[in-house]
């Protein structure tokens, strides 16, 4: 009975050692992966902040103002004026389309003046 137990324990020990060995390498590769991903995130974030800075620089109010002035011929942009505020009832909304389906045939009407009535 006892030798069987020894053999069994030795086998368990070996399989545990194998498992630990594999876990060790799996962890190391996961860590490498994480650090690669993190440096990629850092790189992308840096790029993102650079893009944002660039966007803000290109959209700075003084540049937009100069561009609006330069392209006045095509854009016709002017500073906003108080008079440009409107009311809803100033907006011309399109009328609903007329419904012609209910219209009957044209009617001929002949006008007859009552002769008794004085025209003026």
């Amino acid at each position: 009975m006892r030798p069987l137990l020894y053999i069994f324990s030795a086998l368990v020990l070996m399989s545990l050692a194998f498992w630990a060995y594999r876990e060790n390498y799996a962890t190391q590769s996961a860590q490498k992966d994480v650090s690669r991903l993190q440096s990629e995130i850092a790189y992308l974030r840096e790029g993102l902040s650079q893009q944002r800075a660039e966007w803000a620089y290109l959209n700075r109010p003084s540049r937009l103002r100069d561009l609006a002035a330069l392209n006045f011929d095509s854009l016709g942009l002017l500073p906003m004026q108080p008079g440009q505020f409107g009311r809803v009832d100033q907006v011309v909304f399109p009328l609903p389309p007329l419904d012609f389906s209910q219209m009957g045939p044209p009617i001929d009407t002949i006008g007859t003046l009552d002769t008794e009535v004085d025209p003026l």
Partner: protein
Amino acid sequence: MTRTPLRPLARILSAREKGENPDHIERENIRLRAEVTRASSQTRAEGRLLLLGLAFFAAFTVVGARMGLLAASEPMEPRTAATGQEISGRRADITDRNGRLMATNLSTHALYAHPKQMVDPARVARELAVLFPDMNASDLERRFTDGRSFLWLRKKLSPEQMQSVHDIGDPGLLFGPRDMRLYPNGKLAAHILGGASFGAEGVHSAEVIGVAGIERALDTRLRDPAQANTPLALSIDLTVQSTMTEVLEAGMVMMNAKGAAAVMMDVHTGEIIAMASLPDFDPNDRPSPLLKGDPADSPLFNRAVQGVYELGSTAKILTSAQAMELGLVNADTMVDANAPLRWGKHKIGEFEGKNYGPLLSVTDVIVKSSNVGTANLALKIGGDRQQAFFKTMGLFDPVPIELSEASTAAPLIPKRWADIVTITTSYGHGMSVSPMHLASAYAAIANNGIKLQPTLLRRDRAPEGRRVLSEANAKAAASMLRQVVTRGTASMGEVEGYEVGGKTGTADKVKATGGYDKGKNINTFAAMFPASDPQYVIVVTLDEASENTGPKPRRTAGWTTVPVTAEVIRRTAPLLGLRPKIDYAPVASAASATTPVE
């Protein structure tokens, strides 16, 4: 173990035969037995002690080994903590109230040299001097060859410059990564942002620290790693700020002023929507402060906060509002305005020696800007109550806004508050405060009498304020200010649809040597709009302005600051989403325009 009986029969019998006491045998046996027990328990105790000693030894060895390992090993970031926080642990961005970027970071490189590793110092010096015109070839060569082993060359490099330095190809030229603070809007809001520079510098990194403005005042918040990813949102509206600066700049040129400042504030929240001071500077390339002369002449000087000027007549509304609040008068009470007023050896007169008296209503005192009428109101109020009111209006303390310059710019207050001081301060002379103070006091009137703490940071809701005037009196004061524009000294301030109400102020500049400088004015216009339900307060100040289109230069605020302010309001109010109150021409509605014609 065989147990020896205490009284072995054989020995007892033989002892009895020999006539010995058998009890001796028993005692001897008891002694032997006790000795054996003692010996075994001693061994056991010793064993236990040894075990305990071993355990302690092992524990201390582990702790010691760990400490040694930590002390000796290279520091390394924990890679498994996958928060990503430490990656962006740098200075937080600054945005305007709508999230538009005002300050951010950019990665660049610094250039340094290890002269001892240089192959050809003379050639490097020559080529660097070609790349950077501000460097001198012979000077550089001398520094490369004087035996030093390390030398900073440039704090920031553009990518193109970096490539050119790479192309020189000398192993003695090295690059260190740097985070650089960038202000994409250039000069816009320069005085608010302040600027940043490098603190402790190393080859691998450098601290970015704020040197002025909000960058310095909120340096701890901006550098806090926990908040590095949350941008700091200011109360500034970038579009309004830009428009206001543009109009102010044009106004400053047109009115031949040497400086200008403007502050616009939301009266319901105390937020500063725009604040400008001219001349300004580029925070990306902050000029060095003046070493001699008046610091106020430097573009770094923030006139809106640091510039303390005599309020001039803009203070009169405070006196009238207080007199009404104390129940001494109401808007229609007639007060003595007979000029000149004699007080001891002093004579108080009106503008250009006029006399608006003998009696004026309180409203007309403001509308006509009567010094004498205001002085008489102030005498009714008394010096103590006047001081207390100015204090509650915040005119005696530095403005508590988030700028590093604000805390150092204390108002100039007379030490002794004699009656003549009561008189002169009532119409804004003899006491100097900043345009920011004035804006904050006017905002209290505009906010129906509730004084709020001004701020440069975005507020999502109105903070708790302190009531300094009753609602009725605040409304009455606002109505007086409106009449100043409709029929008083600020008639050029009318902007159709926006019901501007405000008060002009013209004060002679105080000379550094004491006394007043005649002919050099500080012109101020403090206004609120729309006066019937004030939303915003604006204060515009022009330094030494004069309007020269007439036969002689006009230096009063009504001719210089007021038209500039009106233009600022005309341009910015629509941007703020304020609908003008204009009687619209009735437009033929769609329905009536398309009624079928018979």
